[in-house]
């Protein structure tokens, strides 16, 4: 029982991290109808920027304090992500308005290649560390209930908390601020939003910046866990089933989907994996999402797809 709970908690927290990346997909899809394959590349790019700036800035300015150095690096990395968002909008998306979904998907794949190459040219391609002072020691819970208790990694716990905070903040941003309202209007209907005076271009830059922010947070958390290296961009492939399971247009869907995938993945690896020869984590998430989709083709919380002739 203790082992089961441990796996379950591990899955929930891994799921929270997946939803952090899935969030970036959902934000952009909601506001511009673009399925942003480049989210993974953005995570890598942001993490690389953060890792290198936290080396460069303290070295250049002679700052001793680690906190100050990290804060400055975070601000600098965020500025870079806003610049990337602006460039993507200016050079690519604004020229592809009204194209088919698959063309836009391919364009973001092109952006993926570009960002992967550009990030590594700019920041180097070694393995870097991000140290934002995440606690590394595991803690034990329920020691009175079970023998040995339930082991939980504190790092994962903090990461999950940050993810939850971020989601809450984004929900508030979308619901309460006027910019958030404008974003929802654009998501609902481009033309109607434009006709009441919402500037589409600026909205897209904002959305991509917010997605860049989500990528940066995800990059820092994943980066301090795994180290910043090229394989970080592959984490996005793990987030894809989360997105379709939760529904492409739903922020809560990204969270619930992440939790389902996280738990399903860990439990299946432990309980079904040995029967099939192990390593099933990679495809299990997709098959799980596929099964959910067979029942609900628009994902758990996606808007119902209505076909009109």
């Amino acid at each position: 029982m203790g082992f089961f709970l441990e796996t379950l908690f591990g899955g929930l927290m891994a799921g929270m991290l997946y939803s952090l990346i899935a969030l970036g997909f959902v934000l952009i899809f909601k506001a511009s109808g673009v399925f942003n394959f480049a989210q993974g590349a953005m995570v890598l790019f942001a993490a690389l920027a953060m890792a290198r700036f936290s080396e460069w800035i303290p070295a250049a300015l002679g700052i001793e304090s680690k906190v100050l150095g990290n804060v400055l690096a975070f601000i600098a990395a965020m500025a870079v992500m806003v610049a990337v968002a602006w460039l993507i909008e200016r050079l690519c998306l604004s020229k592809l308005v009204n194209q088919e979904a698959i063309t836009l998907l391919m364009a973001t794949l092109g952006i993926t290649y570009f960002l992967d190459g550009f990030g590594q040219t700019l920041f180097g391609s070694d393995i870097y560390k991000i140290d934002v002072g995440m606690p590394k020691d595991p803690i034990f819970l329920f020691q009175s209930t079970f023998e040995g208790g339930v082991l939980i990694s504190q790092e994962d716990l903090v990461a999950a908390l940050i993810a939850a905070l971020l989601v809450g903040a984004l929900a508030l941003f979308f619901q309460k601020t006027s910019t958030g309202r404008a974003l929802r209007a654009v998501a609902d209907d481009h033309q109607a939003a434009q006709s009441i005076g919402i500037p589409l271009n600026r909205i897209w830059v904002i959305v991509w910046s917010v997605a860049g922010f989500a990528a940066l947070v995800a990059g820092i958390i994943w980066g301090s866990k795994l180290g910043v290296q090229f394989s970080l961009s592959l984490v996005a492939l793990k987030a894809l089933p989360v997105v379709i399971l939760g529904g492409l247009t739903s922020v809560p869907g990204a969270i619930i989907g992440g939790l389902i995938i996280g738990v399903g993945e860990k439990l299946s690896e432990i309980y079904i994996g040995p029967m099939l020869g192990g390593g099933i984590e990679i495809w299990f998430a997709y098959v799980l999402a596929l099964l959910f989709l067979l029942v609900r083709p628009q994902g758990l919380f996606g808007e119902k797809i209505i076909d009109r002739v």
Partner: protein
Amino acid sequence: MLYRENGQFKTNYRADQQVFPILQDRIAIGALLVFAFAVVPLIAPEYLFRAILIPFLILSLAALGLNILVGYCGQISLGTGAFMAIGAYAAYNFQVRIPGMPLIVSLLLGGATATLVGVLFGIPSLRIKGLYLAVATLAAQFFTDWAFLRIKWFTNDSASGSVSVAGLQVFGLPIETPAQKYLFCLAFVAVFALLAKNLVRSHIGREWMAIRDMDVAAAVIGIRPVYAKLSAFAVSSFIVGVAGALWGFVHLGSWEPAAFSIDRSFQLLFMVIIGGLGSIMGSFFGAAFIVVLPIVLDALPYWFGIPIDTALAAHLTFMIFGALIVFFLIVEPHGLARLWSTAKEKLRLWPFPH
């Protein structure tokens, strides 16, 4: 002036329904085929066969298969590499396990196996649409990647799923030199291109296009979506499977599952989009572009005599590749095939202004 149909009257249905109704097209295609079959094997250097011509032919066959699914039937698939892998490994198993199996038969049986699996993974398309389907097809990709690594029976108990074939021959003729391999692939490509061309202009091709344009409307006028979608999946995965078998047998010789990874799937999708969705010709253009581009990008620094660190060169190649793809999508979202048909329109009037 040279390229126009004036004076070419169609006096019977046969003439009206030809694949190439214009005489100049027939001459051009005939000349191209003669050139490809008879002249190229004599003059091309070995490097050209290995690095460009054979990969180009096989990948354009795979792109052709994918184009039937994505371009004609409108079902986006990100799992093409998986069907190539299934074709390759199934053909390998037929070749190894059944003594005296003719090469062509095992290649075709590889395609047939890919068809079965393709139809299986096509079933969700009846309910899941658009981008959701695109992501769902990744399930096929990751599942086959895993299966060929972990299930030893598929790979004849070899370690890490790497297998190899040797001593290929057809009707007693060996396929060893690059020129022979090239001719073998070319024959496959020519036959399949002709079949595909005829398929897409038959009633089944029209059904696919109706489903692509609006599946509800197509169902209303009496097209069965089940039949149309699954047949598109079947035909597409057959061609892709045969291409995969050729890729393994003829081009690589020995391969492991990584040869058919998700990158291959994206590469094929790029070919289809850049070449032109819903165009047989476009698949060839796209394949040529994607095969040649990285080679040119790699060679570029040497031509200009600029010494570049290899890691940096690889990253720069990534950047330029990505930027060029975005550039192409912006300039011509309908692909190279559209440029080709625009050029043909212009040629009809040339050199006169009207």
